């Protein structure tokens, strides 16, 4: 079976005009043709099978949105190949649009002046949605996202949270084969986020659609996705299942202890050789609080014993980093810690 999405050595650059500061600089830039090429996406390849649920994460400016825009046909790639549902997105954008659904969390999609209910009807005509699908998704949306009271409101008067929910319902109304959700929970409160996730999961289960979600809220991903793609400065940093991600990086564990009194630096120097033997190191000292990091779970008993013996410990806890911590670490280090 062909993959639903096939991306091969994809690149996209932006031209940025070189401009000196100030008004005179602007005038000069008007006549000079000097420009810098900046990579937004640099040589990315991946395949996504139909029915997969993939989280796409990365810092601001990592190239997530640019990738999504190329996948949906909004932007033309610089080089490399993209194939979505057997089509080349930018060449066959309109045909592809019938089978994909897109939400841009940062931008309202619905027509400004028209009430929500009429927008939904319009989309029904536009996508030629069969009654059964339309009624099912609409019912789910009304029920799970509580849209009923919003139906007769013009889009312009909706609050951010209300508009996001309507946008999401609109994007999934035609039960698309692939849904691209770019920050679908941005700016929403915790309970609405929960509703949004449930709705996405429900529609995904019913129609077995492929999901691509970009987000800065990792809960969206742990709750919905099975696979994770991490981008950094336009390059692919990680691609694999959430489990793999955790296994690969969560081997580093932490022991956090609290001592009776602040520890003297000399004492720590003394400890160092013993720690090194156990592949452990002191990560941070904050008054009475000490954090140690070590590689293998096998060392836990040894290390605990050592610390209890050498230091006046009052409290001790073990910590296995969660995905959020791991991702923050990766962003900080800009490299994958070795497995």
């Amino acid at each position, binding site marked *: 079976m062909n993959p639903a999405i096939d991306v091969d050595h994809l690149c996209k650059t*932006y031209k940025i005009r070189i401009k000196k500061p100030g008004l005179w600089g602007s005038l000069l830039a008007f006549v000079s043709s000097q420009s810098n090429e900046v990579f937004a996406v640099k040589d990315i390849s991946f395949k996504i099978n139909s029915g997969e649920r993939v989280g796409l994460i990365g810092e601001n*400016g990592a190239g997530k*949105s640019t990738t999504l*825009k190329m996948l*949906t*046909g*909004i*932007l*033309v790639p610089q080089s490399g190949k993209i194939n979505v549902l057997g089509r080349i997105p*930018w060449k066959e*954008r*309109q*045909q592809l*649009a*019938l089978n*994909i659904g*897109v939400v*841009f969390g*940062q*931008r*309202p*999609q619905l*027509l*400004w*002046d*028209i*009430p929500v209910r*009429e927008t939904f*009807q*319009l989309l029904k*005509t*536009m*996508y*030629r949605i069969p009654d059964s699908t339309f009624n099912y998704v609409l019912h789910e949306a009304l029920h799970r996202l509580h849209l009923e009271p919003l139906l007769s409101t*013009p889009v312009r008067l909706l609050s951010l949270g209300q508009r996001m929910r309507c946008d999401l319902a609109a994007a999934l109304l035609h039960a698309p084969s692939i849904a691209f959700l770019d920050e679908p929970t941005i700016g929403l409160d915790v309970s609405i986020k929960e509703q949004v996730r449930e709705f996405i999961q429900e529609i995904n289960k019913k129609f077995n659609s492929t999901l691509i979600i970009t987000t800065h809220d990792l809960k969206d991903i742990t709750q919905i996705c099975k696979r994770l793609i991490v981008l950094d400065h336009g390059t692919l940093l990680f691609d694999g299942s959430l489990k793999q991600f955790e296994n690969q990086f969560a081997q580093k564990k932490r022991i956090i202890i609290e001592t009776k009194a602040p520890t003297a630096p000399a004492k720590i120097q003394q400890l160092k050789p013993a720690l090194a033997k156990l592949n452990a190191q002191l990560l941070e000292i904050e008054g009475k609080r000490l954090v140690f990091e070590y590689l293998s779970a096998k060392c836990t008993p040894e290390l605990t014993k050592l610390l209890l013996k050498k230091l006046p410990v009052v409290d001790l806890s073990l910590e296995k980093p969660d995905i959020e911590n791991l991702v923050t670490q990766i962003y900080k280090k800009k490299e994958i810690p070795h497995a």
Partner: protein
Amino acid sequence: MNELKIYWSVFKSSLQAKMEYKLDFLIGMITSIMLQLAALGLLWVVIHQSPLLGGWTGKEVLFLFGISATALGTAELLFNHIWMLPYYIVMGDLDRLLIYPTPPLPFLLISSPVLHSFGNLLTGMVLLIYCLSHFHEPWYIWMMVPLWSFCGTIIYTSMLVCICSLSFKFIGPYTYNLNFVHSLLQASRYPLSIYPNWLKYLLLFLIPFGAFNFLPGNFIFHKLFGLFGAWIAPVFAALSIWIAKQLWTWGLKNYQSTGT
């Protein structure tokens, strides 16, 4: 067919939504009629000084005023959102139209009618009816007038689209370029024969507002150019749609969106 249905329902719903603002509608109507009347007042002053304007009598010039006003009114009613297009391009808002299975440009154009267009339409129609009945024009001229006026709408909008397509590559919300086109349309309310050659030829060939206005007028009142004057408007309309479409497609390939 499905697409026409979509455009119609977008148009209908937006119009209904706009109708809710009755005061806005009223003020818009009055303003656009006042603007037309002011221009007519100026014409009256000019005609008072010299009875012939580039070989045209005042009453003949009313025909040009009428066609321009109805063409503008129809454009404002159907395609007014063109004025927002540069902002859509620069701010990256075009994204949301590109994810729909409908051609984005007509969808965008039709989605925000303005009601003060009725003011221009009304003034234009009154002028045309007054002028044509004054000269006892035969029925086939009456039949041609809506065609000329609609060709005017098409040519005017196409020119605006051409200018907008340039903002894909040369980023900047250049609505003053659109204003330039608008001013040229207003200039075509007077006989082109009064203008210096460069402006005359600009309005005949490059931005061909003379094709639906000055040339048909000559056909009616001065029996110049023969049938060429009567039928050149649809030809130019088709041509300008084609050019606008080419430029638009070229522009869309250069669309950069924004970082988000």
